[in-house]
C-alpha cells in the first residue's frame, strides 16, 4: 500500500476573504436557491469532476446565518486575504522546514458540487518542499496551501441539496504529505504529528470537523483513490485497510470478468415500467404508484459477481449503487439480489427476456425514479462503472462512512480546474515578514512534552497521551485555573475520548469553563470522580450546566444516599456468601455496591462502609 495524507485544519482567525466571524450557527436568516454550471478553461477543457457534478443538474439551497455576508453568498467580490491566516500558514511552513513562495497567488479551483456558492474554492500555494520527522522516518511535505473551507451540507432531497453558509470561508491550512506512508499506523502517527504542530501555533480551531484528513491510497495494480474529509484520526488505519481490501477485491473481480469475457453493451436503457407494475410492495412499487418509471440495463457475464456469496463487503453491486446515488437516485436493485423488495422470480425473468439476456451468468440492473433525466443519467453511470470494472480500479474521490468504509462521491479532479482569482491581489512574502515569523515560532512538540513532564509532574506516558490527544492547550489552561494535573489529564485523555467513542457528537464542544466547573465539583465533593462520565454524557445530551447535568444524572445530592444502610442491606441479602467467606466477601460485594451508588460516592468511602457492615454482620452472627 502507498498512501499520502492531506491534513486540512481550520484556523481560529476570522474568515479568509471577508470580515465575518468564523462561527457555526443554527440560526438561519435567509434562504436562497441557485444552480451551477460547469465552466471550462481555454478550448473548453472542462474538468472531469466539474463536468460530472454539473451534469447532475442539481438545485442548491443555501441558508445564510448571522455570520454570513454578501461574500459568502457570492454577491460581493472577496476582500483582500486575511493577513493573520497568511501568517499562520507561513508559520507552519517554517515549522515544516518548507520554502515559502515569493508571492502568493490566489487561485479559483472549480468545485460545482454546491459546497461553494461561487462554484469555485479560493486556494493558494504558500510553501513547498517541507518535511516532518515522525518516529524513525522523515516524510516529505510537498505543499502547504491556504484555502477557504466549504459550506456545510445540512440536507439532501431528490434533485436538491441544502447547504449552510456558516462554515464557508473559514481559513483552512492544507498540508500534503508525499505518498510515502506504508500502513495505517504510520498514517495515524503522521497525522498526529502534523496535528500537534498545527496546534502549537495556538491559532487553530478545535472540535469535531475542525481538522479533516484526505487519504490518498493505492495498491499495486490499483489506482489512486482519495478518501475525502476523514474527521476521526482513530479511524484512519481502518479507512486505509478497507480501501486496500476494496481495491484487492475489485482487481480479483476484474480478472474473473475478463475470464468470462463479460462486456457492457452500449445500449439505451430499457423502460420496464409495465413489466414491474404488477409488483405491489417494496420501494419500486411505491415509486411507480407515484407516477415514476422503472428502467433496466443488461450486464452480460456479470451474474453472481455483483454480490458474490460469502465475499467481503466490497461488492461491485455496492459500487454501482453508490454511483447511482451520486447522480441523485436513492439506489438500485440488481439481479444477484433478486428476488427481494417485492420483485419476484417471474418479474425478473420477464425483465431478462426484455433485455435479450439468456445466459446463466448474465446480470441486469433495475432502477426507478420520478425524473426520466435522472434515470437516464443513472443508467449511463452504471454502464460506465461496469465498464471500468473490466479495466481495473477507477481513480476516484470517495466519502468516508462512520464504519471505516467509504462510498464513491465523484471522479478525481485534475489541474484543469484551476485559474487565477483576479479579484484578490497577489500577496508578497517579504523577507521582513518571514524574519518576523521566524523570531516568534512556537515551541516544538518535543519541548511541550518536556514541559508537561517537568512543570506538571506528568509521567512520560501521561504527557505523551496529552500531546497525542491534542489537549496540551486545554490541559495547561485548566491547570492554570488551579485544577489538579492528574484529574485534568484523565478528563482530557480518557473521559472525553471515551465519550466521543460512545458516539456523542457534541463531546468536543465543551467550553473550557464547563470543564473547569466539572473538575471543581469533583474536588468539592459535590459528586465522586466516578460520576464524571455520566455528567459528560448529560452535558453532551444537552444539559445546560454542570449542576443541571448532575441533576439529570441523579447525582446532584450525594448526601441523600444512606451508604451504611445500603451496605447493610447488601450484606443481609448475601448472608450465605458472607457466612461462607467471612470478611473476604468484601471483594465480590464491593462490585455490587459500587454499581448501586455508581458515581455518587467515592470508591474509598464505599469500601469503608461495606467493611463496617460486614464487621457488624459477623459480630451479630458469629456462626462462621
Amino acid at each position: 500500500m502507498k498512501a499520502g495524507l492531506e491534513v486540512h485544519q481550520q484556523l481560529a482567525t476570522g474568515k479568509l476573504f471577508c470580515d465575518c466571524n468564523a462561527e457555526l450557527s443554527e440560526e438561519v436568516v435567509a434562504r436562497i436557491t441557485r444552480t451551477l454550471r460547469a465552466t471550462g478553461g481555454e478550448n473548453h477543457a472542462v474538468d472531469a469532476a466539474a463536468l460530472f457534478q454539473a451534469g447532475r443538474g442539481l438545485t442548491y439551497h443555501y441558508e445564510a446565518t448571522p455570520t454570513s455576508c454578501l461574500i459568502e453568498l457570492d454577491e460581493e467580490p472577496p476582500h483582500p486575504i486575511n493577513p493573520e491566516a497568511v501568517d499562520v500558514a507561513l508559520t507552519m511552513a517554517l515549522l515544516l522546514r518548507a520554502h515559502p513562495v515569493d508571492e502568493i497567488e490566489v487561485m479559483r479551483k472549480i468545485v460545482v458540487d454546491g459546497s461553494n456558492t461561487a462554484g469555485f474554492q479560493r486556494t493558494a500555494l504558500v510553501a513547498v518542499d517541507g518535511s516532518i520527522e515522525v518516529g524513525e522516518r522523515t516524510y516529505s511535505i510537498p505543499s502547504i496551501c491556504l484555502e477557504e473551507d466549504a459550506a456545510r451540507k445540512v440536507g439532501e432531497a431528490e434533485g436538491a441539496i441544502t447547504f449552510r453558509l456558516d462554515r464557508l470561508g473559514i481559513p483552512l491550512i492544507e498540508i500534503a504529505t508525499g505518498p510515502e506512508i506504508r500502513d495505517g499506523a504510520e498514517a495515524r502517527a503522521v497525522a498526529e504529528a502534523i496535528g500537534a504542530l498545527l496546534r502549537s501555533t495556538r491559532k487553530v480551531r478545535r472540535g469535531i470537523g475542525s481538522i479533516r484528513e484526505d487519504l490518498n491510497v493505492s495498491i499495486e495494480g490499483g489506482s489512486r483513490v482519495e478518501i475525502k474529509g476523514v474527521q476521526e484520526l482513530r479511524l484512519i488505519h481502518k479507512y486505509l485497510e478497507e480501501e486496500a481490501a476494496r481495491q484487492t477485491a475489485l482487481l480479483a473481480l476484474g480478472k474473473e470478468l475478463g475470464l468470462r469475457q463479460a462486456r457492457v453493451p452500449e445500449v439505451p436503457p430499457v423502460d420496464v415500467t409495465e413489466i414491474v407494475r404488477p409488483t405491489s410492495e417494496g420501494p419500486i412499487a411505491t415509486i411507480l404508484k407515484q407516477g415514476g418509471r422503472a428502467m433496466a440495463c443488461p450486464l452480460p457475464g456479470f451474474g453472481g459477481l455483483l454480490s458474490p456469496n460469502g465475499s467481503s463487503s466490497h461488492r461491485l453491486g455496492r459500487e454501482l449503487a453508490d454511483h447511482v446515488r451520486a447522480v441523485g437516485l436513492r439506489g438500485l436493485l440488481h439481479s444477484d439480489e433478486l428476488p427481494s423488495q417485492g420483485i419476484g422470480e417471474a418479474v425478473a425473468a420477464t425483465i431478462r427476456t426484455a433485455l435479450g439476456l439468456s445466459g446463466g451468468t448474465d446480470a441486469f440492473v433495475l432502477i426507478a425514479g420520478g425524473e426520466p433525466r435522472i434515470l437516464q443519467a443513472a443508467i449511463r453511470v452504471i454502464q460506465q462503472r461496469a465498464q471500468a470494472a473490466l479495466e481495473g480500479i477507477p481513480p476516484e474521490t470517495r466519502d468516508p462512512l462512520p464504519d471505516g468504509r467509504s462510498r464513491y462521491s465523484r471522479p478525481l479532479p485534475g489541474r484543469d480546474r484551476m485559474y487565477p482569482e483576479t479579484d484578490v491581489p497577489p500577496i508578497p512574502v517579504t523577507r521582513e515578514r518571514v524574519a518576523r515569523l521566524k523570531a516568534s515560532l512556537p515551541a516544538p512538540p518535543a519541548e511541550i512534552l518536556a514541559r508537561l513532564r517537568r512543570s506538571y509532574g506528568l509521567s512520560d506516558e501521561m504527557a505523551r497521551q496529552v500531546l497525542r490527544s491534542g489537549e496540551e492547550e486545554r490541559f495547561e489552561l485548566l491547570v492554570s485555573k488551579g485544577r489538579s494535573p492528574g484529574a485534568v489529564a484523565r478528563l482530557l485523555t480518557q473521559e472525553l475520548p471515551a465519550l466521543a467513542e460512545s458516539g456523542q457528537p457534541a463531546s468536543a464542544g465543551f467550553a473550557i469553563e464547563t470543564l473547569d466547573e466539572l473538575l471543581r465539583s469533583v474536588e468539592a465533593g459535590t459528586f465522586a470522580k466516578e460520576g464524571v462520565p455520566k455528567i459528560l454524557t448529560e452535558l453532551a445530551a444537552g444539559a445546560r450546566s454542570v449542576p443541571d447535568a448532575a441533576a439529570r444524572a441523579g447525582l446532584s445530592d450525594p448526601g441523600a444516599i444512606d451508604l451504611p444502610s445500603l451496605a447493610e442491606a447488601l450484606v443481609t441479602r448475601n448472608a450465605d456468601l458472607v457466612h461462607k467467606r467471612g470478611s473476604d466477601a468484601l471483594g465480590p460485594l464491593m462490585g455490587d455496591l459500587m454499581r448501586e451508588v455508581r458515581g455518587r460516592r467515592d470508591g474509598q468511602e464505599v469500601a469503608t462502609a461495606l467493611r463496617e457492615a460486614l464487621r457488624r454482620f459477623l459480630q451479630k452472627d458469629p456462626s462462621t
Partner: protein
Amino acid sequence: MSSEEIPTDPWEMVRGLPMDRGIEIRTPDGRAWTGTLVPSHEFSGDRIVQLKLASGYNIGVRLGRQDTVRVLDPRRDASPPSTPLPLRATPPPDGWVALLTTGGTIASRVDYRTGAVRPVRDEREILGFYPDLERDGPVRVIPVTDRLSEEIGPADWLAIADKIVAVFREGAVGVVVAHGTDTLAFTAAALAFLLEDLPGPVVAVGAQRSPDRPSSDGFTNLAEAVRLARHANLAEVVVLMHEGMSDNRFSIHRATRVRKMHSSERGAFRTRNGPPLGTIIDGAITLGTDVRPRAPGAARVPTRLDGKGELLWFHPGLEPERARRQAEGLRGLVIAGTGLGHISLAHLPWIREAIEHGVVVVMTTQCLEGNADPYVYATGRELLKAGVVYAGDLLPETAFVKLLWALGRAEDPKEVGRLMLADRAGEFEPRHPAMDPG
C-alpha cells in the same frame, strides 16, 4: 529537453520569453522552481515571475540577479489550430431571436491562463458558452460592439437601435441586447425613447458575475431573456435581471424606470416608484396588464440624439461658477436636485441666464423615489418661475437620456420642455400606490 544557460540578468531574458514556455529557475542556494511561464498579475511585485506549477497552482518567484533560468522545452503549440467557423445558414430560419452583443460581463470570458477578461464576439463561442439558448428555437448572435458598458455612449445607443430595426425587418421575433450592467439602464432607456413601432420585445440583459464562474447569473439571465424575447406578448424595451439572490426568480423592468442599485448583487436592478413590469418565477412569465402587446409594424428610429445635454448632480458646497461653466455650450441640462428638486438659490442667477439663452433646464430628484415638486418650498417656486422644467418622478438618468432624445427631436426649447413632460415610454408613474414597507 534542450537547455541554454543565460549569463546576463535573467529578468531581461524572461521578459523576452513568450508565455506558456516551460522554465526552470535556479537560485544560487540550490533551490529550483519549475513551471510554465504565465503573465504576472497587474499588482505583482518587482521582478516577480509567475509560474504555473504541475499541480495547477500559480506562484510568484522573485527573480534574483544571480538566479539562472533554463528554458525547458522548445516552443509548444499552445492551443490546437482553430478551425474556421462555418457561417450560419442565411437567410435565418423562422422564429429566430436576435442576440445583439455589446460587450460587458455577460459577453466576456476569462482567459483561464491569466485570469484576464476579454470580450467574446464569435457566435459559436457564445452559443457554446450558453448552450441552453437554442433549446426552443434558433438564436442568431450579432455583435454590435465589444466594450465594457462604462465605455458605451449615445453613438452606440443609436447603433444598437439601428441594428434592432434591421433584425426586426429581417424577421426576428424578438431581440435580446447583452450589455454590461453599469450603464445598462441608460442604454435600455435610450432604446425605449428611440425605437418606434416595435413589433416585438427588446430585452436588455446583463450579468453581475462573469460567465467563467459556475455561479454566474449570466446563464439564467440570458436564457430567460431569450425565452421572453421569443414567447412574450410584449412589444417594448425591458430589462431582465435576477429579482434577488436566487437563480429561479427574475424581474422584468420597464427600461425607463429601472436603475442599478447595487454594485455587485445579482438583484441590483430595481424598478423605482412602483413594482416591476413583470416577473419570471420558476419559468412562469407573468406580465402586468399595461404592457404594449405585439403588433405588426416595421420598427424604426425616426429621431437622432443630440449630445448637447448633461446631467448635474447637485451637492452642498457646489460652486455656482463651476456649475455655470458646465452648462456652457449646452442645449439642455438635467439637475439631480435634493429632496423635492432643490438646488441652492446661489445658483439661480446662472440658471436664469442659461434659460434665457435657450438652455432647457430639467429638475429631477436625487432621492430616486418620489416626485420632484416645485410648489412645496420657496426654492422650488423660484426655480419654476425661472423656467426650470420639473420632471415629476422621472429618474435623473432617464431624464438625461430623454433630454438627448428630445433635443434631437425638437429645436425650440419650449417644445423640448413639452416633450420632456409628455409620457413616451412609460417613464412616468403618476400614481405611487401604498406598498407594504416589507
